[in-house]
């Protein structure tokens, strides 16, 4: 392959291909209308990136242990599909989903609970920002120490990571209802609960979804990293760390792809849910 690089036509050829790629994405993006255009453009862009990755890795003879070609990654994913599925179930099915639900749920409930206590809020929020600066690499070993090497310790890390973003967002969201709207409810002599349900929670929805989305990616990363510090013999983090240590980089990237696809899908799913739930919000309405 190396001789192809030395060929004087290689780089001009790549440049030409890059232009073609850029133009095709540009044209795709310019298509008017339907919602799938956005997705298709992003997908086309992704396909080109993968293609360039493949060509460059091969042409430049990049060692497989540094950066495997996408074709190798795909092949490895197919070969080890059952293994990766097991890892997915272990990490996502248990730690991420449970941790995310618990973290977001408790963040939300605590926010609603302390909504009426400004004193606690003023005290908690600085402490929340203090904890948000604690990196999970420090928390993960402690979690494994406390909760064992099975999924509960990963879920605990995820809970810790997702709790405060949800708490902070929900509190901000509960304050988002307009003054006029609040005074309207007040003039109806509506009860606290009524105002919460009819006005403040709906108004907070965009904030809550914002936290749900951010937390989805945080939860995934948190669970995977926590597995680096002790785990059973399956899980995406386990796979990444052990296969990296034995130089099986295609499978490492395979696991990373599974993680990234899962994260992106979760994100996209939440975006769709948000479109349904907060259909009235200007950012959704405009399309």
């Amino acid at each position, binding site marked *: 392959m190396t001789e192809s690089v030395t060929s004087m036509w290689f780089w001009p050829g790549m440049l030409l291909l890059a232009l073609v790629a850029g133009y095709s994405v540009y044209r795709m993006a310019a298509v008017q209308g339907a919602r799938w255009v956005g997705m298709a453009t992003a997908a086309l862009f992704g396909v080109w990136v993968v293609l360039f990755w493949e060509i460059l890795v091969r042409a430049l003879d990049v060692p497989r242990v540094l950066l495997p070609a996408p074709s190798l990654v795909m092949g490895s994913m197919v070969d080890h599909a059952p293994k990766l599925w097991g890892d997915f179930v272990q990490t996502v099915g248990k730690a991420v989903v449970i941790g995310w639900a618990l973290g977001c749920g408790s963040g939300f409930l605590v926010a609603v609970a302390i909504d009426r206590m400004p004193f606690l809020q003023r005290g908690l929020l600085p402490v929340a920002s203090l904890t948000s600066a604690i990196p999970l690499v420090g928390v993960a070993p402690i979690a494994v120490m406390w909760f064992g090497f099975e999924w509960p310790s990963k879920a605990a890390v995820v809970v810790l990571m997702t709790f405060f973003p949800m708490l902070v967002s929900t509190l901000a969201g509960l304050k988002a209802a*307009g003054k*006029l*709207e609040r*005074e*309207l*409810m*007040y*003039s*109806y*002599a*509506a009860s606290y609960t*009524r105002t919460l349900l*009819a*006005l403040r929670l*709906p108004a907070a*929805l965009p904030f809550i979804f914002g936290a749900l989305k951010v937390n989805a990616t945080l939860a995934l990363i948190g669970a995977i990293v926590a597995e680096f510090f002790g785990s059973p013999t399956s899980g995406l983090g386990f796979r990444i760390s052990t296969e990296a240590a034995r130089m099986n980089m295609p499978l490492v990237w395979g696991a990373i792809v599974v993680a990234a696809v899962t994260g992106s899908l979760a994100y996209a799913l939440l975006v769709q849910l948000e479109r349904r739930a*907060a*259909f*009235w*919000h*200007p950012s959704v*309405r405009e399309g």
Partner: protein
Amino acid sequence: MNHSESTHLGTAPSQTHLQQRTAVEVRNASVIYQTADTPVHALSDIDLHIAEGEFVSLIGPSGCGKTTLMRVIADLEHISAGEVLVNGVSPHDARLARAYGYVFQAPALFPWRNVLANVTLPLQIQGKGKAEAKRIAMEHLERVGLKGFEGKYPWQLSGGMQQRVSIARALSFEPKILMMDEPFGALDEITRDRLNEQLQQLWQRERRTVVFVTHSIAEAVYLSTKIVVMSPRPGRIVKVIDSPLPDERHLGLRDTPAFMELAHEVREALADGHH
């Protein structure tokens, strides 16, 4: 502070449309906002008497305290001094007794509720049953000319339609006192005329107490039984004018000399207060 005319308010005028029961009684009320530099006297020494069934318009230049006075009556703002009674009790108690229907200057509709659900909201809070709430709401939507739009969401309506929804919402509540803060500010003249007419008829029919803020002299004169002219810095009442016009009104009234004379009187009072 020349609100000399406001002193004979205690004795209600003898016009037939004024019942003797008191709806709102404001005595010597002041509101002072504390701001960074100097305190703002939003309302200073206000005396006002509103009998049940009156249609009272507040008019005056920007910043003269019209909104503040409305908010004081509706328990959205506390007075710094003086006394306010609504239906004989404090504004707070009156609010808990669900005495108010408040129409804000902006429609303040909930975007996640469609038109019908927005109108039924206060009924729901009142504890009305679903079917009944719907029936009442549909009735009032029809009254403001929005039949057929009950399934639409607020952002699918023009500004004027939104404002009409908010009026329907306040009316459906059947409040003792209807508070309207420049409800027609954003509408074109013709739509506005039409709504004025409807509001007049509504008041004719039901004789609710209405407190109404407007910038339009014609509107104030056309609608009110009593016009309160205010002036800013500090916010005070410069004149209270009881309308000599008959209760039955139609738009044609606006071209009569009596109407013009009253409008002139209001304009004079305004100009007096305007420095």
